[in-house]
């Protein structure tokens, strides 16, 4: 099972990349733990999480080919 993780805005300053693939991650909590270890800086940041372009508000089970995006506060306009 393959998951795509996307980073935007301020977060890309910390991750140094905007996209990565991860495998065998059962839910968003596990995914966030993984990311926090890989990029400790993101623990100090506020962001929302979207799965397949829909913002989630609680831990969600992941399935193959899901796209998980980490979104800092929007600042368009």
């Amino acid at each position, binding site marked *: 099972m393959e998951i795509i993780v996307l980073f*935007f*805005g301020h977060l890309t300053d910390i991750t140094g990349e905007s996209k990565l693939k991860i495998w065998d991650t059962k839910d968003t909590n596990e995914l966030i733990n993984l990311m926090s270890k890989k990029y400790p800086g993101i623990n100090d940041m506020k962001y929302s999480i*979207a799965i397949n372009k829909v913002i989630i508000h609680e831990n969600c089970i992941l399935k193959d080919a899901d796209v998980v*995006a980490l*979104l800092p*506060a*929007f*600042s*368009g*306009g």
Partner: protein
Amino acid sequence: MKKVFIEGAISPTFISDSIAKHSLKKDIGAHSIFLGQVRNDHLRGKEVVAIEYSAYQEMAEEKFHEIRENMFAKYQLNCLHIYHSLGKVNAGEISLFVFTSSAHRKEAIEACQEMVEKIKNEVPIWGKELFTGEDYEWKINKL
């Protein structure tokens, strides 16, 4: 789905062309337009010379579409157009163009205002304020 994103600044000519197209829709009585212009804010003694916009484009386009649908359901609108810049927009240039049209002013004005708030709060777009020199800061939207 309607094209929303424009590479670079939105030109005044683009805006007037858009206005001119509505002269054939003779049941329109009121247009309300909002334009966001890049401000040369001063932070820590440095000046913002441009904003570089990026977006989660696929999600933003879906969101724009959804907001548009909601607006047409809520207000008696004849037309609703939204354009937002991607990439670099210099201070003094326009990065957001919201355009609502209705038979009467109340609907057009209210829909335009609500649309602007929704774009600022609900659409995954980010602005990076570029200062003189190499410095930058990620933009924060005020309420």
